[in-house]
């Protein structure tokens, strides 16, 4: 963590049902800007953050081939016990960032979580 401000930034996301981990990653450099982890032994923050940045990078580079030229919004990855939600945040005048949220599948409501994440991203991009 870089500062208390960075910690506080992710507090709304950490309140989502089933929350396990959230991380804001610089989409260009892959650097973790801020993170919040429920159980540090549960997941490798460095690996999941890097993986999320790679996914966004690949999909953005592929967008013309995919016929999706209006911008990547989010990616949902479903594992047996986890949801990984990845959202691309483009703030005006700022470096784009990727928000990764990992949720416990048995406790999370995917649709609600996606809406909360969308609203959170709108709040930090404005």
């Amino acid at each position, binding site marked *: 963590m870089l500062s208390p401000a960075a910690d506080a*930034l992710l507090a709304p996301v950490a309140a989502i049902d089933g929350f396990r981990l959230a991380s804001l990653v610089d989409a260009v450099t892959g650097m973790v800007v801020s993170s919040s982890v429920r159980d540090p032994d549960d997941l490798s923050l460095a690996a999941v953050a890097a993986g999320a940045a790679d996914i966004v990078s690949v999909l953005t580079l592929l967008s013309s081939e995919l016929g999706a030229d209006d911008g990547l919004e989010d990616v949902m990855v479903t594992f047996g016990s986890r949801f990984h939600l990845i959202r691309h945040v483009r703030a005006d005048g700022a*470096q784009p960032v990727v928000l990764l949220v990992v949720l416990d599948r048995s406790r999370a409501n995917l649709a609600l979580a996606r809406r909360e994440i969308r609203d959170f991203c709108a709040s930090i991009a404005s």
Partner: protein
Amino acid sequence: MSQGYGNLIAARLRRLAGTGRTGVLPFAGHAEGALYFSDGRVVFAESAGTPGPVTGAPPERAATLAALTGAAEPIADAALDLMQGRSSPSRFRSAKVPAAGLTDGFGVESLLAEVARRQNILEQLASTVRADTTVVRRPRPNLRGVQVSAFQWALLVRVADGSTARALAWDLRRSVFAMTIDVYRLMVLRLLSAVDYPVVPGMRPLGEPAGRSVLPMSFLRAVSTKNGGVR
């Protein structure tokens, strides 16, 4: 950065962190600059080879995402430049630490891990582009569907004779590391190419034996211990 030399610098930084020092560690050599410590944490860094932070940001943005990335990136960028093995630290001295916008800065271990991660990524890109590789725009008749960020457009507009990622970073007041990655991505999109650097991303370098492919850049590979990365 050679392993032995990097270890010497890392050991010195750890000593400063362990003793909770406040002051400045100057670097001299190819890239001159300094790391600024406050209570053992790196709160600011500057290098003659990197542009540093954009000044004059409105204070109300201090808690926003832009302020966080804007404060952290120049520190990591300058530290990477200073620790590439072309400069050496000199005597640590007490000094007033510049206001960096963040009170905590990086812990030394976090900063060393971030520098190592970036070095791994630069090694991945080294056969394609480096910060000082000259690049030119490529004519691309069909741009339909190609997605580039606002920063990438700004970069493309400024590419001229002799442009390098480092020069463009100074021009746009952005991180040299970030600019190198954006240049690489624009090369992948065939919007830029490197002068006198025949390797195109995704293609085998000229003269390299068949069977050895150039893997695309991967952040995950840079932090995977299985592939020599750092966590």
